[in-house]
């Protein structure tokens, strides 16, 4: 009999998280990735994602934060090989587990998707075919990726439905429309996790759900992620969710990553003006309610064509911002792309020099 749950991937003695992150090699490495849309005449139209670098270590939960049009979903689509036809990766590499994903054949990509990289989308209705029972769909998915008998597949599916805290037997024999949104998203989570993937891409998994439901689902995701030590790329526009749960964060604006680093670090010392404003410009539950919220000027569509994408909305922008800032380290595992920081550093250097 095959074992239902493969525990072999679970590390025997789990090191302390931070230490663990520093040690291991990245599971996913995105290098210099650019995505452009192509018009009707096969001419490069708009650069939507501009030279981004990202890496996820095994077992790490990375939050990708940004507004609509920031390119966060496109990045996810690119790494899943699901970009629409009009969009193309023009530059860069996506290395997953030592393998190059760009230019991978559709067949290989399909084998990879689901099996090693699982994905959960915002649209939970779309995760399941409406007229087939959940159980049957899970079994079919299992059998298409693994050699497994029907009984075993059923056992495995039931087990995973239980693991996501659903009434397994009942859900197994239900049609998708008989379940609530939260239940469906849990079932989608089970479908994603039952292959014990190395990486889960969760694109706004709870945006369509209620506050309490999304909390429980994200908590569940975190628990299972820890238990099976898979990496998660959590894409969200909800800063709360990301700050609360991820190990590290990358903030995107207008197709560029403006700041990335460990979550705690960024929460405490955000450096980039955009991150700072994002953290301030949202109502936060507190005993003292501010009279006015800090406002980010402009609209999300306002993206500078050259240089720093945030320049047009940035209160600190100056002439230098028309040149694209490079990613610079500003602390332990904390990088930003902003000129203002340099000049600040220059200033402090200068002033400190004066002192001496």
């Amino acid at each position: 009999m095959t074992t239902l749950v493969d525990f072999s991937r679970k590390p025997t003695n789990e090191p302390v998280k931070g230490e663990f992150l520093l040690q291991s090699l990245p599971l996913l490495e995105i290098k210099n990735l650019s995505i452009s849309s192509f018009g009707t005449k096969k001419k490069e139209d708009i650069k939507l994602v501009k030279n981004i670098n990202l890496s996820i270590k095994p077992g790490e939960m990375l939050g990708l934060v940004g507004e609509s049009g920031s390119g966060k979903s496109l990045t996810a689509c690119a790494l899943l090989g699901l970009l629409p036809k009009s969009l193309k990766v023009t530059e860069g590499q996506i290395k997953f587990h030592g393998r190059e994903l760009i230019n991978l054949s559709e067949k290989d990509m399909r084998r990879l998707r689901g099996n090693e990289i699982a994905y959960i989308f915002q649209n939970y209705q779309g995760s399941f075919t409406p007229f087939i029972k959940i159980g049957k769909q899970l079994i079919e998915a299992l059998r298409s990726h693994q050699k497994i008998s029907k009984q075993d597949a059923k056992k495995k599916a039931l087990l995973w439905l239980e693991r996501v805290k659903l009434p397994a037997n009942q859900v197994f024999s239900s049609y998708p429309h008989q379940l609530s949104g939260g239940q469906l998203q849990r079932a989608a989570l089970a479908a994603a996790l039952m292959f014990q993937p190395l990486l889960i891409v969760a694109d706004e998994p709870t945006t369509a759900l209620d506050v309490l439901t999304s909390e429980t689902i994200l908590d569940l995701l975190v628990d299972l992620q820890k238990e099976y030590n898979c990496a998660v790329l959590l894409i969200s526009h909800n800063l709360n969710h990301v700050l609360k749960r991820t190990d590290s964060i990358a903030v995107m604006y207008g197709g560029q990553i403006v700041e990335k680093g460990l979550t705690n670090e960024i929460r405490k010392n955000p450096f980039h003006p955009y991150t700072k404003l994002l953290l301030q410009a949202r109502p936060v539950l507190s005993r003292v309610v501010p009279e006015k919220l800090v406002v980010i000027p402009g609209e999300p569509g306002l993206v500078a064509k050259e240089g720093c994408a945030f320049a047009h909305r940035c209160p600190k922008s100056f002439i230098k911002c028309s040149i694209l800032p490079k990613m610079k380290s500003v602390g332990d595992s904390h990088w930003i792309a902003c000129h203002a920081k340099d000049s600040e550093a220059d200033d402090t250097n200068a002033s400190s020099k004066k002192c001496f």
Partner: protein
Amino acid sequence: MLQVKNVSKSYRLTPVLNEITFQMQQGESLGLIGESGSGKSTMAKLIVGLEHADGGQITLNDVDFQELRGAELRKARRHVQVVFQDPLASLNPKLPVWKSIIEPLENYPDVVPSFLKEVRNDRKKMAGILLEKVGLDRNLLERYPHQLSGGQRQRVGIARGISLQPNLLICDEPTSSLDVSIQAQILNLLKELKKEFNMSYLFISHDMASVQYMCDRIAVFKQGVLVDLFLSKDLFSDTRHPYTKTLVEVTVES
């Protein structure tokens, strides 16, 4: 000003609202918070008279909306206006924004809001003033909704909402379809306008933090029942309903 007394409503035998009772004073803002399906949007529809309650009474300035029909109801509606959740869906895609904004003013020719007194006969000028009130440039007047960004559209929706200078403005999740960086702009704008026109707000949301920011009092709905009603400053009090406490717990940052 607004009195809701024992209001119940059900759709096809499923109860949506159960014996809801609350009051609002002029100039006060009340937050309605709850999950989807808790009946908070239905409450809003009942107050505007878009739907009729099965039982109970809703009176605004001592006028009972439930008993009005047709022209009478239309007349009474000028005191309540709504800012909708999805600004793209709530603006007619085939009309330029200025026409959408002043439509209520066209429908009520005898209403003269104080800030439009001088230009009441000039439709474009009225639309221009309203646009400026919500922080938009006049040159957007001729644009169509699809040519605006999400934040601009919601500002247009707000301009329409305040055009009649209503006593009560119902904001039905006004920021939930907007980007994070726009949310603060819209909330600030709503707060400023409230002060300027001394309107009352019924602020519907599922986000405890924005409700706390916007409102004097908070009403918590759960499955059609009003489980908790309290002053915003008592949000963290120990006497809160357990459901309110869970809502607070998940919203507070660790």
